[in-house]
């Protein structure tokens, strides 16, 4: 049963990605400008040379066919802007950077968030609860383009503890500020989701049963309550993790990280079609796969769900 479900979902993924790519391709075509345009007008003959070299002078359906053939063979071709780099090379190089920062940020958020949320739920309406929820409210309301510069001001420009930007590899001190900046909002969300989930579960019958059986409070919380209380966090994790791994444009820009997000924004500004399509295809596959994983995980965590 479960196998057929997974297979069906995987089969749906392929056409969905193709639709996303087609739409993206059409949008790039509709957007004004092109990859070779600059402020100054190029002599028409030079423009003609460029268009011939990249096949832009052929009819649109030929170009579209070319794009689709490339994508189905999982080879996105060379970037237009960075001529001697293939899109696949760029993905291979940038993904680890974004994934390292994103995963660390998510793990940190998960750790701090669940602890804060659980504590807040257990001590509902106490100072601890208000404190934790106040902090998480702040995390949600302060956008990362505000938080990032503040952290830089304090830790880099005043205390000179941490580098204000740039990537020195994994692991390195240069990761600290981006990870903190990125995790804040997820930390806050997770704390609030955990608290709400836990509050609901703690009032349910099976917890009362567990307590009645004479289990210690620790066993009740860790073994029984958390499993149910974390369900909202799990469904949040799928898309969140996919987005974190594929890079976040703002944080990567503030800290000048050579990640997928940086490339994505620049590829758009440069109208670098193969690169845009490659990143979009990759990101959409990742989002779909992570959602699938979440659904599967549900089956394991929540005994009420059957496929």
């Amino acid at each position: 049963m479960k196998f057929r479900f997974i297979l069906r979902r995987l089969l749906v993924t392929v056409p969905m990605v193709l639709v996303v790519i087609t739409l993206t391709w059409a949008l790039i075509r509709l957007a004004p400008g092109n990859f070779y345009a600059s402020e100054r007008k190029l002599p028409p003959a030079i423009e003609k040379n460029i268009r011939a070299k990249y096949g832009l002078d052929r009819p649109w359906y030929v170009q579209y066919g070319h794009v689709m053939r490339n994508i189905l063979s999982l080879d996105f071709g060379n970037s237009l802007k960075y001529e001697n780099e293939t899109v696949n090379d760029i993905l291979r190089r940038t993904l680890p950077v974004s994934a390292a920062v994103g995963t660390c940020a998510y793990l940190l958020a998960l750790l701090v968030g669940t602890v804060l949320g659980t504590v807040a739920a257990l001590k509902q309406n106490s100072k601890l609860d208000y404190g934790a929820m106040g902090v998480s409210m702040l995390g949600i309301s302060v956008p990362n383009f505000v938080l990032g510069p503040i952290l830089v001001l304090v830790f880099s420009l005043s205390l000179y503890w941490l580098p204000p930007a740039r990537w020195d590899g994994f692991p390195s001190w240069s990761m600290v500020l981006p990870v903190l900046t990125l995790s804040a909002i997820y930390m806050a969300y997770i704390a609030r989701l955990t608290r709400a989930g836990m509050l609901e579960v703690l009032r349910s019958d099976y917890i009362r049963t567990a307590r009645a059986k004479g289990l210690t409070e620790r066993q009740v919380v860790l073994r029984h309550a958390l499993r149910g209380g974390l369900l909202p966090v799990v469904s949040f994790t799928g898309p969140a993790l996919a987005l974190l791994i594929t890079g976040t444009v703002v944080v990567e820009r503030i800290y000048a990280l050579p990640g997928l997000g940086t490339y994505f924004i620049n590829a758009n500004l440069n109208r670098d079609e193969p690169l845009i399509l490659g990143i979009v295809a990759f990101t959409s596959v990742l989002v779909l796969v992570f959602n699938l994983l979440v659904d599967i995980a549900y089956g394991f965590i929540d005994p009420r769900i059957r496929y």
Partner: protein
Amino acid sequence: MTESKTARLLTLALSAALLLAACGPPVQKSDYFGKVEPPPGQTLRYITGSEPESLDPQMSSGQPEARLDIALYEGLVEYHPKTMEPIPGVAESWKVNSNASEFVFFLRKNARFSNGDPITARDFVYTFRRGLDPALASRVAFLAWEIKNAEAYNTGGSFVRDPKTGRFVLASEAAESGGAAGQAAGPVSGEDAAPDTEFHRRMHEPDRLFVPTDEKEREKALKADPKLAALVEGKELVPATAEDVGVEAVDDYTFRITLRQPAPYFMGLVAHQFFRVVHQPTVEKYGVNWTKPGNIVSSGTHMLAEHKPYNQLVVVKNPYYWDADKVRLDKIVFYPLDDQTTMMNLYKAGEVDATYNHTVPASWLRAGVRYARDYMDAPENGSVYWQVNTTAPPLDDKRVRKAFALAIDRQALEEFRVVSKANNVFVPTGILHGYPSPKGYDFDVEGAKKLLADAGYKDGAGKFDPKKFPANSIEVIYNTSESNRQVAEFVQAQWKQNLGLTIPLRAIEWKTFVQTRAKLEYKGFAGGAGWSGDYMDPYTYLGLFATEGGDNGTGWFQTKFVDMLNAANREPDQAKRYEQLSKAEAYLLDECPVIPLSKPATSWMKKPYVKGMYPNPATLHAWKFVYIEHDPAKWDQSMPDMTNDQIAEAKE
């Protein structure tokens, strides 16, 4: 404590932290900005702008690439670090013929590529031809179009030959009809600096006519020009090839360039990366991947050691460089970054030693950074001006145009903008050594009013009367951008205060703006235009008005002005030529098709221990002169003196 109280407290703490950070001690005139601690040894950490699109010198067009290319490749000549004038590179000397249509370069015999191979004149022939190859599709190939037959080859053109007589149709024959591509003026042979050859004689034949090789395009061109069609009728087409381009290796160490017409400014172009020499075997072996680390063989002061895109690019000293003893920097680390705040943070934290131009945000400058001793605030090779549609009333009267030009306080604009400097003439002042700028538009409200009164906008007493002027029939259009808006509003306010005229403003999206301007569909003024010089010569600006189309955009075109420019360009003596160009500029200013406003400031930062690096007009640095000074006593106390040609030198 209630939840709201906690939140209020937190908000308070946060705003306090922000305030504290924002209002740190202001930068004083005596201060440097941020940490001043030189890195160990001779390593420079430099921010050069966005990730380079290519390390192939013939392919890249931007400034970020140009700065990298200067480290990696050397051309016939190099830029002087202060004046940008050509100084010897691979060529140890050169000769220009009397009408500046032929350039002979004498190459040094000890110049080598980074793998030890000697650099000869043949390498330059290869490099020039490669850049012009239509299949390479270089965006900047037009820089070389002044070279004989280069345009025909680069644009995929064919010469037209009579099959019976074997004679080529000349460009002059088509030019008489006023249409067709090609230039009429053939080079005049001057005294020969290098031996005459058959190729050389061929280069001195009159320019041939060329038409598109591509059939569809040719048909289009012929249809549009019946005279041209008649010339081509019954003739055979001979495609232009690389061998037709006017570059020649006379011998291993003599390289000759023949132009299609005199162009004294061509020397100023030769240091451009497009003309920097590349290693033929490497390019041919690796194709598009030849610039990757491990593959690349280069010719400059430094060679590529590491390239992590969007992260860092490291070059190290090239031991084979002919002047390696003089090269001080063992290593340059380039950071590809273009976010202003991020790079200023890195600079302040002492993680980088210098940045590229226009990197300091205006708000930081106003907050005091412009007084920092390490702020590089020099004029740039650019001009910001408004174009005037001279074809429609009331601005078809040059007195009216001049009145508007006189009624702007450019000093106040400089003070307001911070990132640009006042400029009251068309060619930016103070950057072209030896060019005598004509008298510009001083701020003269009375003079402006008098001109307007003379033009008929006066009351009974003969005084200027703003009510008589049809201010609403004209407007200022500018392409949408924050800085353009600021300038437009400033000038609008000036005209209102000084002349009592309110000219409406209208922002237009860039691509539409360009069209509206080119087709003269605007009434009044087109703002937001600027021109950054392609080379260090007044002609890069004045030449804009040598054609009716192109980037002219004013409808003002006079053969008298074009004749003045051509006469100047035929003048072999540079000082006299500059004088003549200055007279042409004076004429242009008197006709007033443009209202000059300002010139950009370089606006970048450099730690005081970085020496031999100057705020030159294009922010291109010959890295061989740059070094790290570890003795604080010799550090720069302020922006280096730019009034002389002296280059700082480290004493051992």
